């Protein structure tokens, strides 16, 4: 064992991850069950009183909870930040935080899949058997006003958590991380264009139609997760090697010096 080696074992909080993933999974499963039961029975006509009771009230409730809850959670993350004290944490603590961060990233991944695949394609299937009467349908309400906001809140929370709890992200911003969470945020305004377009010039519901390509472009922003993973792996690699110095804080080298790129050939 060398001087630089990890002396203490760092264990990931598996129970926390399992609990969070389980809770998220159960909520989305329950919502899916509600959608299945209520879509064709009380969700076919926006102008029926039943639709207002079972769908619009649900939408108002979930939007209120997500807005208040999301703002409160991110506010809490921000106001409980450690400021410069984050630079003083031990190597083991920093590695432990990376493991926690990756666990939270898996929750974000799960929400991406639930939103952009399972809930989005429920909308694709729905539009093939019904004609939209307004922008609010039993598939739009879960997708645009629940699943996507959940994904955005998770992404933003990760961004705030990472930049306030990880020393390597202190005092600077990871561009690929910003792009990864920024694209999904812009999907929400694009919903406005989508609905406007469907109202005015494109009543059909071909999923591959050009009116939907704005979503595609914004979805591609998640390709940037690769650059961010490289930053994480590079830092963990340095920590394991005992190289804990935060060079960007000492201004000893430019912000994007070549050494910041993880290079597997050099590393091996």
């Amino acid at each position: 064992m060398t001087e630089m080696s990890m002396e203490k074992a760092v264990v990931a909080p598996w129970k926390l991850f399992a609990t969070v993933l389980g809770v998220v999974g159960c909520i989305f499963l329950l919502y899916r069950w509600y959608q299945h039961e209520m879509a064709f029975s009380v969700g076919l006509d926006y102008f029926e009183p039943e639709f207002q009771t079972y769908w619009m009230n649900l939408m108002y409730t979930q939007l209120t909870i997500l807005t208040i809850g999301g703002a409160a959670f991110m506010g809490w993350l921000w106001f409980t930040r450690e400021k410069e004290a984050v630079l003083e944490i031990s190597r083991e603590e920093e590695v432990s935080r990376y493991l926690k961060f990756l666990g939270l990233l898996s929750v974000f991944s799960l929400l991406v899949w639930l939103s952009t695949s399972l809930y989005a394609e429920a909308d694709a299937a729905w539009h093939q058997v019904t004609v939209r009467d307004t922008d609010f349908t039993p598939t739009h309400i879960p997708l645009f006003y629940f699943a996507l906001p959940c994904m955005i809140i998770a992404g933003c929370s990760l961004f705030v958590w990472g930049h306030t709890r990880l020393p390597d992200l202190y005092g600077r911003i990871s561009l690929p991380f910003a792009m990864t969470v920024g694209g999904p945020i812009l999907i929400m305004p694009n919903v406005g264009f989508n609905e406007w377009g469907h109202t005015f010039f494109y009543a059909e519901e071909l999923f591959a139609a050009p009116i939907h390509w704005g979503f595609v472009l914004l979805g591609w922003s998640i390709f940037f997760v690769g650059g961010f993973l490289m930053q994480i792996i590079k830092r963990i690699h340095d920590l394991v090697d005992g190289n804990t110095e935060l060079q960007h804080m000492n201004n000893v080298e430019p912000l994007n010096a070549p050494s910041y790129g993880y290079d597997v050939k050099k590393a091996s």
Partner: protein
Amino acid sequence: MERISTVNERKLFLTLDILLIPVLVILFMGVFSFHFALTVGDWDYWIDWRDRRWWPLVTPLSLIVLPGVFGYLLWDKLRWPLGGTITILGLSSAAWVSRVWNFEIFAGFPLNMVTPSTYVGLGLMLDATLVITKSFMVTGLFGGFLFGFLIYPLNWPIIAPYHLPIEMDGTLMTVADVMGYEYIRTAIPEYVRIIESSTLRTFGEAVVPLTAVFAGFLTVLTYYLWVWVGYLTSKPTWIKKIV
């Protein structure tokens, strides 16, 4: 001198793998599914949309995107020659979950009308070319071409039964056409029938091979574009402030 990892470090690396791999795979499921649904979507949803001119052309152009982008990341940065296989496996998994839950259970279409196509073989071929040649250039040329070229033959066993002729009310149709007429949708593939009556029909039996070669050629060109995008997006860039 190279340092040997301690037990604690090896445990840490294992933990990292256990955390990172699901993150990536689930993310691929979501992103690929979203991208594919909004660029190919209807062609892959319905058995009567899988025509012989547009479906084999549109599909590889969209399907090559993630294998190119994440193929670069996984091979160049991590030496995993798995970009094509893992991303397409993610797409196929997400597609099966969605077709069963959304199209069959929720909307009531028979599963054999909405069965996803198979593409995993294409990813395997692309990755195999990469691991043998260790070159994105050669992979694009050979693997990329086969990727586009073989979509139709790879799926032929799935599609063939639906192309059998059937007579309904005095009109000769395919099984896929009959299913399309029986299950009325808001997006029936009328365009396919219009194209089939155009002058391209004079190519007769050569239509599929002709489309396959053209698809292979386009996939070669676009593979390089997406590998380049993968190079850009995997750059670990830092900035001082957003605005």
